[in-house]
């Protein structure tokens, strides 16, 4: 059930179809093979709000999953560095299992096996598929984010913790006030990767029946099979805008909190 493979095949066929189409219809000045067909673009724009709803779902899933991933993944990373005994082992095993399981399997388990309920928050109600999607993507992201934070927490020199403790800070306080602020700064590049991965992996929720951006694109070009290229380009542009703006925002955050470095040592 390779979605990517199916899409790639469809895209290739569509390019062929586009080429044939331009051979019949007179070209409008430019070669239209790589920018698509006017009729198909018109089809895409007519359905832009259908795709827009998918984009909103994608954004919602990404934000919720990344947040859940942070809230669970950060403490998990800290336990892997500073914890011991059963807790550390449990966190470690959970991480290995989550990272070693295909995301489709995680989502299907959440939805069909665990059977998470619908959640009513008064104003909005979150469907059980959406809840399963957030939990699945979020917990897997937690497993990866824990490794980002484990690495950056461990990268802070031991002398920092020792200096904090020499002032009379408890171990927890020294980690909290001295190590964590430095580790979080170092986590930003890894976090950017993780964000991009989660954003693109939200497409896998089609497996539990959620129609996010890519699934809706698939629906659209199934309806008008000559428009595969146009739909894919349009969707890619949305993904690009989302990843680009978020990464730039995180770059900004990184340079705002960057620790000044002088020339002298």
């Amino acid at each position, binding site marked *: 059930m390779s979605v990517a493979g199916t899409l790639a095949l469809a895209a290739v066929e569509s390019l062929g179809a586009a080429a044939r189409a331009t051979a019949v219809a007179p070209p409008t000045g430019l070669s239209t093979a790589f920018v698509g067909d006017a009729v198909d673009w018109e089809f895409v724009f007519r359905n832009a709000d259908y795709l827009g709803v998918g984009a909103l779902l994608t954004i919602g899933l990404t934000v919720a999953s990344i947040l859940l991933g942070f809230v669970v993944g950060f403490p998990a990373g800290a336990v892997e560095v500073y914890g011991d005994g059963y807790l550390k082992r449990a966190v470690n095993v959970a991480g290995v299992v989550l990272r070693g399981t295909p995301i489709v399997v995680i989502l299907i388990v959440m939805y069909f096996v665990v059977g998470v309920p619908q959640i009513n928050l008064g104003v909005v109600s979150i469907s059980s598929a959406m809840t399963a999607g957030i939990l699945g993507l979020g917990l897997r992201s937690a497993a990866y984010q824990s490794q980002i934070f484990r690495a950056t927490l461990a990268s802070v020199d031991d002398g920092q913790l020792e*200096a904090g403790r020499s*002032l*009379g800070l408890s171990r927890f306080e020294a980690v909290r006030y001295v190590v964590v602020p430095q580790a979080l700064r170092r986590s930003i590049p890894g976090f950017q990767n993780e964000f991009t991965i989660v954003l693109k992996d939200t497409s896998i929720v089609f497996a539990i029946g959620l129609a996010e951006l890519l699934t809706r694109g698939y629906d659209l070009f199934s309806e008008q099979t000559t428009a595969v290229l146009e739909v894919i380009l349009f969707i890619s542009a949305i993904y690009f805008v989302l990843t680009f703006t978020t990464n730039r925002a995180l770059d900004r955050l990184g340079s705002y909190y960057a*620790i000044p470095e*002088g020339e002298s*040592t």
Partner: protein
Amino acid sequence: MSDDDFLRVTDVSKWYGEEQVLHDVSFEMDRGDVTVLIGPSGSGKSTMLRCVNRLAEAQEGSILLDGEEVLSPDLDVDELRREVGMVFQGFNLFAHLTAVGNVALGPRRVLGLSETEARERAEDQLERVGLGEQFDSYPAELSGGQQQRVGIARALAMEPKLMLFDEPTSALDPELIGEVLEVMHGLVDEGMTMLVVTHEMSFARAVADEVVFLDDGRVVERGPPEQLFERPEEERTGRFLERIASHD
């Protein structure tokens, strides 16, 4: 050796695994004393120093500070460290905080001072070590000598009753050592009780009340600097001092 010694270290031994790094080390200090620990690298002098604030754990012996047993398992180590300042060889300044932030952290988070009080205290301490112009500089923006003075100010801001110096000038370029020693001389003049591990023999000669020579984790010889430096009784002490002198 009176009953009211301020710091009394008695027969302290420590092992790293199988290897014994301290063998029955003993010495004592009065309030306001400066004791300098000297010895070749690996002699255990830094380890001995770190046992006093429990950054290293001694397995045997006794360390009485102001009448309290430091090595007692019931001791609150955080409270002990609140009262014992430490200056590190590698400075260990908090890299993400300014000079003021470094010095204010302890007063703010350990002593519970308000933001403003902690900042004021930090500024006072930085002025005390001659860094009135560098309040908002980050460690990486400071020279090594300036960083170490921030390190001293950070320890002083807790108003410790004992200061530990672990080779405070060993990581510094020669031209930067003077400014740190000058601050330390100032502390001696103010009557601070100081236990110092250093290779700066001129400093030891000038200010130490007692010099303790350690080798192989044992106290080989101890005494006032003029005696230990001019008329060492042990052959090993003499050899060590000659080696050091040839590098000066």
